[in-house]
């Protein structure tokens, strides 16, 4: 319990620091957003309207006041309004994009698991054979492939040469899904709209496959090494001696190796979300990443700020959950965590 409290406290400090950094990055760095918005190549004298706009955004006040105001708004869930899209609240835009990204990430994780499990098991069981070499090489290629390139190649193969999957978007234009949670696949299933669900699934497959193979490489590496650790332990030999079938023994090994793997995947959730930024852009899939890039290209700074804060907060939350899980599953972690060793 002490450990959990300690970690939650630490997380709050980190969250606070994150807001400070985002605030300073977006307000203090040499490229000032208002200057970017107004441009510097104009013939007109924009001094007066610039000053008015700065006053409107509160940029004329001292920094610490600005920061406190910013923090106060965030705590109340107010992330400001989009400058570009008719002043729509940032939170509403995020609420539309987030379920899409979550659904895509889960689908990608499932794909990654389906591919990684057999590869890692083969690789670990037949250690130092051609199977193992193949598995490790597969993992290395998975880690090194640029996801955006892989996405384009998948489009080339499966949308252009053999048109099985659609290129972009969330679903076919003629289909409409009643909105419940905002996540299209879940909504379609909940309302029994099977045609809609099928369409969404087909649209998600290529982006999820791209994202999934990227994670898959890491997953194989982690799972393989935790399987190797379990493999030579006495209880596994005991299972074999008792005459358990090989699949049952592998089941027990997995049972021991999966928690570590799950925790490590939880700690890498940031990389997963970073991946979605690029992949959503390739497939014009209107999730968080797509929103971020659109906002940057439109110089819509409140949206950029809101998306970055929320994405980072999600990553921090996921890391916290993974850490606490790790502490519960592996009591040794508590000892080092509770002392506040600073790492």
């Amino acid at each position: 319990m002490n450990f959990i409290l300690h970690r939650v406290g630490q997380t709050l400090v980190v969250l606070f620091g994150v807001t400070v950094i985002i605030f300073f990055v977006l307000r203090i760095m040499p490229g000032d957003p208002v200057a970017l918005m107004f441009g510097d190549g104009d013939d007109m004298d924009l001094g007066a309207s610039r000053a008015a706009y700065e006053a409107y955004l509160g940029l004329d006040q001292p920094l610490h006041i600005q920061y406190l105001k910013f923090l106060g708004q965030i705590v109340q869930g107010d992330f400001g309004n989009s400058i570009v899209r008719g002043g729509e609240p940032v939170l509403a835009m995020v609420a539309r994009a987030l379920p899409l990204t979550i659904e895509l990430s889960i689908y990608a994780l499932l794909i990654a698991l389906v591919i990684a499990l057999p590869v890692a098991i083969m690789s670990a069981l037949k250690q130092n054979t051609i199977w193992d070499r193949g598995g490790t090489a597969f993992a290395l290629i998975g880690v090194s492939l640029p996801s955006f390139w892989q996405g384009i190649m998948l489009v080339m193969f499966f949308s252009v040469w053999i048109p099985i999957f659609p290129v972009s978007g969330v679903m076919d234009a003629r289909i409409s899904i009643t909105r419940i949670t905002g996540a299209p696949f879940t909504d379609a299933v909940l309302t029994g709209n099977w045609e809609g669900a099928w369409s969404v699934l087909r649209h998600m497959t290529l982006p999820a496959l791209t994202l999934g193979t990227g994670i898959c490489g890491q997953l194989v590496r982690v799972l393989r090494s935790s399987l190797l650790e379990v493999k030579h332990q006495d209880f596994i030999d005991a299972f074999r001696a008792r005459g358990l079938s090989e699949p049952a023994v592998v089941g027990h090994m997995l049972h021991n190796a999966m928690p570590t793997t799950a925790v490590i995947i939880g700690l890498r959730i940031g990389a997963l979300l970073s991946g979605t930024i690029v992949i959503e852009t390739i497939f014009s899939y209107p999730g968080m990443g797509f929103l971020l890039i659109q906002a940057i290209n439109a110089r819509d700074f409140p949206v950029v700020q809101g998306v970055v804060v929320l994405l980072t907060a999600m990553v921090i939350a996921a890391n916290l959950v993974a850490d606490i899980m790790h502490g519960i599953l592996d009591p040794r972690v508590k000892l080092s965590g509770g002392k506040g060793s600073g790492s």
Partner: protein
Amino acid sequence: MTGFLPRRGRPWPNIIILLAFATMIGFALVAILAPWISPHPPNAQSLMMRLRPPGTEGYWLGTDQLGRDVLSRLIHGARLSLTIGVVVMILTAMLGVVIGLISGYFGGWVDTVIMRIVDIWLAFPFLVLAIALVAVLGQGPDKIVIALVLSGWPGFARPVRGEVLQLREREYTLSARVLGVSPFGVMFKHLLPNVMPTVLVLSAVDLGYNILALASLSFLGLGIGAETATWGGMLASGRNYVATAWWLAALPGIAIFLVVMSSNLIGDWLRDRYDPRSPFRAARNQNLAAARAAATNA
């Protein structure tokens, strides 16, 4: 760790490492010699020769939608990617190592404050932070370098600090301090050489990361103007011609993949050699110790 150590101790299949080194050296040579070996200027357009497939006379890897030579653009892209990758790697390593040394050596509240900042920094997804920084800083290779260095330094600072925590209790550090060597003297003369293996391993992997991040950023249209030949930018514009001109998107991706994979392979290999847990390293240290003993006796 049983079952893991034997694998680590076994030397890598050397042919693959040699290939990785050869690929890196090859790309480095191409990058250095870019102006002399590229058959055309990277931005020379020839509207008569648009979208020619690879194998066209004079344009061995084909041309793009504006009739620019893909090979020349790839060569100049290599120059930019590798330059930025290496510069970012060196600056990130320097910043991270200095911060890590200070944090680990001084300890106490300095360490606590620095490590809290590192925690906060690591909470950001790397690419998200880099994208936000580039969005604020604006266009230009120098801006990209700043953004990547600022997002990447904790990756060096934390492991270096961890090593220093152990090294500062060693006899040679203590004796240097007793002899009155200044803190910075101890850090840079005595501790730095001993953390270099770690830094080397981290740098090799970091190079690949940087090149991948640069490609992602230029693919997203951030940081470097569209007219400059970058691998990511070539991919982004080639994407629109996937149906008709596969080589435009395929070739730059292969270049990125080769460089990043070589960098990862070299990093893994270095880790196998220098990881303290690796028996390889223990053996090497014994040899070194024996050699030193022999040298002092003679």
